[in-house]
């Protein structure tokens, strides 16, 4: 939090857009609202005094349109925070770990899914000492395999599906 305000005070952004963070944020919301508007355009609206299924989504979409435009306009006219840098490493590996879990849990079972997604997620940080990480990964996998299927009785299958047949 304090970082952003520090930046904003440190170098007031020159140029047409005075608060890029708000400007682009607001614009994205406008785009989202337009998309929602388009996506709900085929739903029936008000009939007589009864709301149709399309009424509320369109109502909220138009509200979001106005508000997003407002945010973008504020960003255009008043000085504000610059865009923050996006890092790639963290988001990439964490997302990859989540996806790997989602795609391996059914066919390959909990042991492989949990351990592999732990190791993939670990790549997101530059500070790993891999021996240590490996040990923690094994320990946590073992813990999960005890906690969820046994202690909590949730329907998890531990081994890969092909090993069960």
């Amino acid at each position: 939090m304090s970082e952003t305000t520090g930046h904003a005070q440190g170098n007031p952004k020159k140029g047409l857009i005075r608060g890029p963070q708000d400007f682009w944020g607001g614009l994205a919301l406008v785009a989202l609202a337009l998309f929602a508007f388009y996506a709900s355009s085929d739903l029936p609206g008000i009939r007589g005094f009864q709301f149709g299924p399309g009424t509320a989504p369109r109502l909220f979409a138009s509200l979001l349109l106005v508000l997003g435009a407002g945010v973008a306009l504020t960003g255009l006219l008043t000085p504000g925070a610059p865009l923050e840098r996006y890092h790639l490493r963290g988001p990439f590996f964490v997302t990859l770990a989540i996806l790997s879990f989602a795609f391996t849990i059914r066919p390959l079972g909990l042991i492989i899914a949990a351990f592999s997604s732990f190791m993939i997620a670990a790549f997101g940080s530059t500070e790993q000492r891999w021996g240590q990480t490996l040990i923690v990964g094994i320990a946590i996998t073992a813990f999960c395999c005890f906690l969820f299927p046994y202690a909590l009785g949730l329907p998890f299958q531990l081994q890969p599906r092909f090993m069960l047949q």
Partner: protein
Amino acid sequence: MTDLFGNLALGFNTVFQFIDWTIPLLGVTIPIPVNILLCLIGALVGTLVGVLPGIGTVATVAMLLPITFGLPPVGALIMLAGIYYGAQYGGSTTSILVNIPGEAGSVVTTLDGHQMAKQGRAGPALAIAAIGSFFAGCVATILIALLGAPLTKFALQFGPAEYFSLMTLGLVFAVVLAKGSVLKAIAMIVFGLLLSMVGSDLETGASRLAFNIPELADGLGFATVAMGVFGFAEIIRNLDAGAEKGRELVQQKVTGLMPTVADLLAAAPAIGRGTMLGSILGILPGGGAVISSFAAYTFEKKISNNPSQFGKGSIKGVAAPESANNAAAQTSFIPLLTLGIPPNAVMALMVGAMTIHGIVPGPQVMQKQPELVWGMIASMWIGNLMLLVINLPLVGIWVQLLRVPYHLLYPCIVIFCAIGIYSVNNAPADVIMAGAFGLVGYWLIKHDFEPAPLLLGMVLGPLMEENLRRAMLISRGDATVFLTRPLSAALLAVSLALLILTFLPMLRKKREEVFVESEN
């Protein structure tokens, strides 16, 4: 009055229930107090979460939802409630000892708490925080017990128009109390409302915004979105920021836990005021632990004889916000239990937990399942007592936990979150969705949008739409119904007034002052 005692007695009976449990292998049956144990587990897990930065209450409750499947409903809710107020205790510990707020509600405690620790008075600071929290917890428990029944009776007279207006008021409160730009907070609420539209229409069954994707036909799961924007997004953000920095621990041993009489005398009025403020802000929809701790600190500083002491280790600066956040954490159960309206994101997850167990939150619950409501209320008091007794001796262990480096901690959180989300519906698609919302949440953080109003909007969306449609149907399409029914009109008038007030330049400045102060 006799009602109150009768109800509380029922509650304590529920909490102290013994259930026979046969030890596997041994075949011996022993009675165990299940609810007490669950309360203890909840409080401990909550403290753990409160201690560890980088994982918040919302993500934890979402993560633990599936764990409560196998529990009886009372036990499940007792445990989840314990996590919420336990986190308020844990957050204060790290704020004081290491200057890292483990929980958003204890950010202000770092200001004076850590200063006290530096002066070698960590013991008294921790003790005052715990005593203040306990006192606040007691008062809040009594408040819930006192207000519960009358508010429920009141709520039963609400029609759809009143419900709609009340929720509007709740959302307006969420905006007023949110940090940063008002416009952006409103935009986030509407974004949340829009997200809640995904799925089948309640009345006609028409598929809305689902793009023929079968996984979306049922709508976006609330726990899924919460886990994404609060759990995964937070992890990604911490990886950016390099969460390892600034984690130097206070190395000296914590000695002399007991505060002196002078400390107690100085802190007592601050605890009282903090409790009062926290209780009020907790009841209001949109409020909660975070905002009330800010408010209590600012208030305490305003009325102090020498405000310059604040920030330099004033015991009042620890006592007031710590009492306030604990009071608010508990009184925010009031709107949930009496009106069925969740005032903040954690309560919204409690709605999810109740729904899983087939309970529809609202005024009917208190009449149909009194043992559930009163059991939960009684458990809060017991939980607070346990936290007071357990936590002070355990301080050393909690601080040790902070030494776990983040680069080992976050992969564990990632897989726990993934397993938690997966086991809600046994659906891999939910995990993918949560991951996607993690990226959305990351984007929101980068553009300084608050995720909390988004979640509130998402939870209230379906309720609001349903009541709006019902009200319009009953009034035969006459939109003035919201203004001609006195109660509804009053609620809308208050919302409008509040909204106008926030846009007034003078108040706006005040509002910014409060938040800036709390950040520096």
